[in-house]
């Protein structure tokens, strides 16, 4: 198992804030909009340097999506910012008609995704957003795994023409990816090469997968770990190549197992290479109040759950 270490913990939303600031410096057409959550989305640096390119819309997410879609017509590249719940479910029809169907170059940037928003509880958590967004024709869906990857992804989506959903989180987590990485939309990252099982992880679950990989190594199981940061378009090639070698797969996501990364992988495998698969994901449930760590544990999203899923799926190999 390749050794991953970290010297600091940071939140992915701060990676977004830093990336937005960078993207704004690179391209004067980058504009930002926010629905009364500037601090939560870490937009301050952008606003300080580019006040005329920032629009505060107030608590009016539907209007924010419509305004963003309209701004693209004038050549702007709008980044909208609010919590993941209010970025998706609340404004689904606005995104569907004014952004996705109209193919507008809007970047829907969603913080506080998944359970790890923590104490605010289920009204503010969302475990359905990947499914909602990947269902929209033409929508790119990205869920980066740490501060550096989120920053790189934010810069990359500004250079991509078309609608994008970028999902990130609230808690501080280990920073373990390359600070100078080049983010390639739709391209998997090989975290660790192995032969016994393929673990495919996205977002906050990537670090958990690394922790699981270390435990599995102690048990004599050589896990291949792949980070799928782009859930749509999926890197079919990387997944198939790995699964051909290992013969089984565990998918890991901070999301409902219905509609998430795991289902995308299952759809690919069932048509191309039927393979035993286990899902580390929430099971058709809402979240609740608690600390992020307590919630990840209660809802089965810890390294130990990945280890158990790996042992189970290896047992299902023919």
């Amino acid at each position, binding site marked *: 198992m390749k050794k991953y270490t970290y010297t600091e913990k940071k939140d992915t939303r701060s990676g977004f804030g830093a990336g937005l600031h960078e993207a704004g410096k690179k391209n004067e057409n980058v*504009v930002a909009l926010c629905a009364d959550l500037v601090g939560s989305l870490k937009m301050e640096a952008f606003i300080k340097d580019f006040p*005329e*390119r920032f*629009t505060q*819309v*107030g608590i*009016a997410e*539907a*209007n*924010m*999506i*419509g*305004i*963003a*879609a*309209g*701004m*693209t*017509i*004038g*050549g*702007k590249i*709008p980044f909208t910012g609010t919590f993941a719940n209010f970025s998706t479910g609340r404004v689904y*029809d*606005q995104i*569907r*008609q*004014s952004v996705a*169907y*109209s*193919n*507008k170059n809007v970047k829907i940037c969603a913080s506080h995704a998944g359970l790890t928003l923590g104490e605010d509880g289920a009204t503010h958590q969302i475990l359905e957003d990947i499914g909602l967004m990947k269902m929209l024709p033409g929508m790119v869906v990205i869920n980066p795994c740490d501060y550096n990857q989120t920053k790189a992804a934010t810069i990359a989506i500004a250079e991509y023409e078309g609608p994008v959903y970028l999902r990130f989180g609230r808690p501080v987590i280990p920073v373990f990816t390359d600070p100078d990485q080049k983010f390639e939309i739709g391209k998997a990252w090989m975290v660790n090469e192995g032969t016994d099982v393929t673990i495919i992880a996205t977002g906050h679950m990537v670090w958990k997968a690394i922790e699981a990989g270390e435990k599995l190594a102690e048990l004599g199981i050589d896990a291949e770990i792949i980070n799928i940061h782009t859930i749509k378009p999926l890197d079919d090639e990387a997944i198939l190549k790995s699964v051909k070698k290992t013969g089984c797969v565990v998918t890991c996501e901070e999301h409902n197992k219905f509609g998430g990364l795991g289902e995308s992988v299952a759809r690919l495998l069932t048509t191309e290479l039927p393979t035993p698969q286990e899902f580390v994901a929430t099971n058709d449930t809402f979240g609740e109040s608690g600390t992020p760590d307590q919630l990840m544990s209660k809802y089965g999203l810890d390294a130990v759950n990945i280890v158990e899923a790996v042992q189970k799926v290896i047992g299902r190999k023919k």
Partner: protein
Amino acid sequence: MKHTIKELEDIASQIRRDIVRMVHGCQSGHPGASLGCTDFFTALYFEVLNHKTDFTMEGAGEDLFFLSNGHISPVWYSTLAHAGYFDKSELATFRKLDSRLQGHPTTHEHLPGIRIASGSLGQGLSVAIGAALAKKLNGDKSYVFALLGDGELQEGQNWEAAMFAPFNKVDHLIASVDYNGQQIDGPTNKVLALDDLQAKFEAFGWHVINTDGNDMQAIVEGLHYAKTLTGKGKPILNLMSTQMGAGVDFMMGTHKWHGTAPNDEQLAVALAQLPETLGDY
């Protein structure tokens, strides 16, 4: 004036013919408010709007128009065709398979003149505001026009947009409301009354004017007047009273022709009231 009022009325007559023929041709679509807004579209595209028919999405240096109540697509399509955006023969494809003239307007098939999809109601004012903000950032002093249905104002997003625009001094925006008092389930006064729209928009900080949307002279003057009010910190709202079905007697004054197509006999009666002035498609 680029055209006399008589010339504009003649164009409107042809557009009305197109509308009833298009809706008859596919036996679906929304003739009522399309006919009611024909004079507005004619005045806008043939007299008021600074636009190029050599279409670009950005429309830099041009005035932009957004239709929020997308179901009145027949009037927009016919207007765009006669203005020169595409050949009028394409009007025969309205609502048919593989057509660029979808039931509700969309950019998906790249029809020149359309900049965003509409149909799911209540979204157009926000989009128009966004386009106006982008123009401001680009130093482009052109106008942004929008048309909203009155029933559509029951959608909450309109009021988010209505609150936003004055506070942010989006003042090159001229939004018109097709104030025909009708919606699918009946008169707006019975479904969900709009009450005093002028007072409501004024309370939100808009400069509100009133026009007769079925009097060509009045609508041309009203839109020109609206332009003189721009640039003063307030968005402009044109409360435009119209008759649903205007120009075809049996379709007027009722919500029944909101989304109903005429049969052969009704088509003949309607066309007899609408002189063919520019040649049918």
